[in-house]
């Protein structure tokens, strides 16, 4: 069997794939966080809970109504997005203009409520969610066998990330978003309904998290705790990337996912902390983050 740096090649490729998959989720979640933060100046602590809600929405749709994976991929983000719209309208919008820390605390409270309620109803253990039949099985890539569903997740997340990036950089809605991030009052003085834009942005960010949740359901189990532990890592990813840049958030997400996978091969004990270590180093060397601008 061939080895690379003393590690069997299939094990290495396998961990890189797992890293890419984790990275896909880091990228999708940090992208949503960055979009929301850019415009609303709110760090959405509930992002992890919204990811968990997306996974649970898919699981509940399947269990109680028989609606399967593909429709859930659309329905779950719509449901979670609608809930987020209500949260923004009735809660977050009262906090604009005061210290952004309150937005963090509010969404932290919401995350606790959602997580606690789901743990109360479903227990802490994970619920299995099967991948759709079209995506089961494995593909022989020559150097390794890749489960088709995992390949799909990497491709789908790339499409989601690039799609979101295009939406922001190339469309009229994106131009509103970018300009309002710079100076919301002026954009509103031009006749753009900025309050509505804020609501939609939060809804979109939450919907993205929910979409990631549905994609994650067949890989990780559907569990009430799946979101919060992930979101703390995503915070570190966001600090490393710097929140000024959408593309930066995406690239950093994949990069750190792969780095984590590689650590699992070469020094498994450190794999759960490597992203935090990178964060600390980046803060010492370049406090604004790899892609960030000094504020």
């Amino acid at each position, binding site marked *: 069997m061939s080895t690379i740096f003393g590690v069997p090649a299939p094990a290495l490729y396998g961990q890189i794939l797992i890293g890419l998959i984790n990275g896909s989720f880091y990228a999708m979640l940090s992208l949503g966080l960055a979009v929301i933060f850019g415009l609303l100046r709110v760090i959405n602590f509930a992002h992890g809970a919204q990811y968990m809600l997306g996974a649970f929405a898919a699981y509940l749709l399947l269990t109680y109504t028989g609606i399967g994976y593909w429709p859930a991929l659309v329905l779950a983000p719509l449901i979670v997005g609608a809930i987020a719209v209500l949260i923004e309208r009735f809660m977050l919008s009262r906090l604009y203009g005061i210290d952004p820390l309150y937005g963090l605390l509010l969404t932290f409270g919401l995350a606790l409520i959602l997580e606690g309620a789901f743990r109360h109803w479903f227990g802490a253990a994970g619920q299995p969610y099967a991948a759709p039949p079209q995506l089961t099985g494995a593909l022989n890539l020559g150097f390794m066998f890749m489960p088709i569903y995992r390949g799909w997740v990497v491709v789908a997340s790339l499409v989601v990330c690039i799609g979101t990036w295009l939406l922001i950089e190339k469309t009229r809605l994106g131009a509103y978003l970018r300009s309002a991030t710079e100076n919301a009052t002026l954009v509103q003085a031009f006749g753009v309904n900025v309050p509505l834009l804020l609501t939609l942005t939060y809804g979109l960010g939450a919907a993205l998290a929910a979409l990631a949740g549905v994609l994650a359901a067949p890989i990780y189990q559907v569990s009430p705790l799946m979101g919060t532990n992930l979101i703390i890592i995503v915070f570190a990813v966001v600090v490393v990337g710097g929140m000024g840049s959408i593309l930066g958030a995406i690239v950093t997400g994949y990069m750190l996912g792969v780095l984590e996978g590689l650590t699992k091969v070469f020094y498994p004990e450190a794999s759960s*902390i490597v992203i935090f270590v990178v964060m600390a180093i980046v803060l010492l060397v370049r406090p604004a983050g790899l892609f960030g601008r000094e504020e």
Partner: protein
Amino acid sequence: MAVGTQYLAEQPRLRTSSMVLGLIAIAALLAAPFFFYPVMLMSVLCFALFACAFNLLIGYVGLLSFGHAAFFGGAAYFTAHAAKVWGLEPLTSILIGVAGAAVMGLIIGFVAIRRQGIYFAMITLALSQMFAFICLQVPFTHGEDGIQGVPRGNLLGLIDLNQPLAMYYVTLAIFLFGFFAIWRIVNSPFGNILKAIRENERRAVSLGYRVDRYKLGAFVMSAALAGLAGGTKAIVFQFATLTDVQWQMSGEVILMTLLGGIGTMIGPIVGAGLVIALQNYLAASDFPVTVLIGIIFVICVLLFRRGIVGEIIELMRRKSKDAS
């Protein structure tokens, strides 16, 4: 001139009244174990001190640490290890916990103060999560089991802390020491500079203060005092586990402070008392504690950001303004 005179006239009155209140409170705390379970009281005292230490940072420097569990739970581990494995005397063990927390505060603070506001919160959260992962893996914390059966021992070789009342009064003394230390820090020239940084960091920089050093100093003090609370808790409850280093614990101390009143001296104590009482009350029922904590968070942020004590102070301020 007018402001100055008013200040002079009002200050002694304020001092006397708060001193009287303070003496009544201390008397009540001395008598408390004859009316309530000492264990619950000690739990409140430990968390109240933890919340006061946290408040030193958010209330007087304006920095929201989302990772204070690392210092609280970290110190609990260090103290428990010193008392159980090394067999040290309890006060020495607690001091080892405090020293450990201070060193951790220096390291985490050094990294975290490079960013402000919301980033500071995220960074402290991430670094404390890293510490929690480390605690899960290194052998001395005994992973999921934690360090159990920590001996309370004899304080300075004289007082047997297995006596509940003795343990209570020692805890009370430690709490009062910590509270007084925070009060001294806040009202010292150092504390005034911290407040100036909170009000306007740029001006403090232009006045020539090395803002980062002051922030780091405050961070280390806050971490050490949180460690004092955590170390004491390990001796009182005779164990140290992962629960105390996890992000939920950081969230709880934020809630206690927010609920009682950020930036008030006694707010965190009131908040800690309420949260512990609620948790004990709910433990008997079916209602999930996490959900309740979340709901209190949302209500506090939306409806009374000053917290209970903060709102009372504001009410009194308005009343005296109307009266004059």
